[in-house]
């Protein structure tokens, strides 16, 4: 019995070394599956970041994983020929051109959420989405990974990572693994359930939602009232990531939605109106529009503090012009943490991911408000 603590310490040290050291390079496998065009990395970090290097890292990992990647020269030629200036999404005409002219089956759009190189406390968060090409571009897969240097400090801090490049490498590996699993047709993770503390604080779910029905969803940009640049785009990506995992949900590529918003010159002053809903949903032939507003999306600065995320979402149906789901979510990274930082969340990315998962799960499978409250009217 006396050697048990020693064994525990040794195991912890070994685990710490494993997580602290760079991962071994997987052996390259023959290229297979659909041909993927990899777009430039969308900068959503609000700070300077090595975007070209991140793209190179992703390309390298994708090739090693055995995915077929479109040659950069061919992609650049197509982008130049079609005068494409917006690469954070795919517009309809370019999606068709990619399919017909260069034979690309899908487009991978990476987005960098966070690249914080604060000495001793680096944080990195990365997203990527795969969009089908052809006549009806659809988001077929979205995933992301976020990591902080002190996510798993281990005993005596031996698991702390101080190199942002190592964190980035791990985040890229995680995203590429997920994409490879999807492309190789293995079962997806589904929406899943989030920790109880991430559930929305207030929920309205209409009884008109039919979980067995297939819905297509257009996500319009969230209103960003927070101090964090691009928080609206980030929350939209978090929602997209979880909605694409729903069995009966299809998400319209945001590049197409943006194209229609520009075409119809729709300017939303505060939120999406019913007239805007009709226009957008008719243009992209979708059933629901998802909109919301972000009030806070803060990552901690340095070693102290906790991330805070505060937002609301709204789903409006085209057919009935009614709100089908609405909720308000608020969480801090130290919610429910009482002893030794157990359960603490270190990045806004990880927290928003849990909150968005909880929303998607309740939107699809939660009980209707009328069932909970018993309906009724004002007295």
């Amino acid at each position, binding site marked *: 019995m006396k050697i048990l603590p020693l064994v525990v310490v040794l195991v912890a040290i070994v685990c710490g070394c494993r997580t602290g050291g760079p991962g071994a390079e997987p052996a390259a496998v023959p290229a297979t599956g659909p041909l993927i065009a990899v777009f430039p990395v969308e900068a959503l970090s609000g700070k300077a970041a090595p975007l070209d290097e991140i793209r190179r890292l992703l390309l390298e990992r994708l090739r090693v994983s055995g995915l077929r990647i479109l040659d950069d020269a061919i992609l650049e030629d197509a982008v130049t020929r079609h005068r494409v200036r917006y690469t954070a999404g795919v517009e309809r005409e370019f999606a068709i051109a990619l399919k017909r002219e260069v034979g690309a089956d899908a487009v991978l759009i990476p987005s960098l959420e966070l690249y914080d190189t604060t000495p001793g406390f680096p944080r990195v968060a990365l997203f990527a989405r795969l969009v089908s090409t052809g006549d009806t571009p659809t988001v077929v897969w979205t995933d992301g990974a976020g990591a902080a240097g002190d996510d798993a400090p281990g005993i005596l801090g031996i698991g702390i990572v101080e190199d942002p490049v190592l964190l980035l490498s791990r985040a890229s590996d995680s995203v590429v693994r997920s994409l490879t699993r999807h492309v190789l047709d293995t079962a997806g993770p589904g929406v899943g359930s989030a920790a109880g503390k991430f559930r929305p604080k207030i929920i309205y779910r209409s009884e008109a939602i039919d979980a067995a029905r297939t819905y297509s969803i257009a996500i319009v940009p969230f209103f960003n009232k927070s101090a964090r640049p691009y928080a609206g785009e980030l929350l939209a990506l978090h929602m997209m990531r979880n909605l694409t995992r729903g069995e009966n949900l299809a998400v319209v590529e945001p590049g197409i939605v943006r194209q229609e918003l520009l075409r119809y010159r729709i300017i939303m002053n505060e939120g999406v109106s019913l007239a805007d809903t009709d226009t957008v949903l008719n243009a992209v032939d979708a059933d629901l529009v998802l909109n919301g507003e972000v009030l806070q999306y803060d990552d901690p600065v340095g070693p102290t503090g906790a991330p805070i995320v505060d937002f609301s979402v709204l789903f409006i149906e085209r057919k009935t012009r009614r*709100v089908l789901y609405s909720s308000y979510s608020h969480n801090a990274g130290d919610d429910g943490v009482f002893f030794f930082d157990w359960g603490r969340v270190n990045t806004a990315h990880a927290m928003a991911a849990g909150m968005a998962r909880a929303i998607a799960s309740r939107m699809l499978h939660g009980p209707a408000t009328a069932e909970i409250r018993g309906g009724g009217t004002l007295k």
Partner: protein
Amino acid sequence: MVLVFTACSSAVTRPVYRDANMDFGAIQIVGVMPFQNLTRDSLAGDRVRDVFINRLLSTGAVYVVPIGEIARAVARTEVQLPATPPPEDVVKLASTLKAQAIITGAVQEYGEVRSGSSSANLISVSVQMLEAQTGKIIWTASSTKGGITMWDRLLGGGGRPMDEVTRAAVNDLIAKLFK
């Protein structure tokens, strides 16, 4: 002792006005206007309005028009003061929104208060419901939640998070509406 505890109580509840002649059961759709923000926090009005709209919808008793539709109605009817519309504008807005009532609100306090070495979050918010046909007030209520409690004074601690205090105040208002 009772007097001391009463004096240190953190939450203050103010009276509620309800129009005795109004048939509240006829109200199915309401529009919630932007809340007047009388605090130093520029987001206080938006935050409290957001929580209020979601909480009201979650009761399942009334349907709340999306805020984008409210913004569109304000633009179409050329209402100059959307947070404090005069009765004639209320009638116009309600007609455009096809709502039976319009709700306006004001956030008077939002944020941290200090007393000696103690501090805690405090919110004070008032709302009123205006009838669609005439624009007259049919219900008003206000709620103050949070503040420094006896516990905070004796044992320290920073009170409850702002988010919790906000939800408590909104729950209090909604409870008064459904009484």
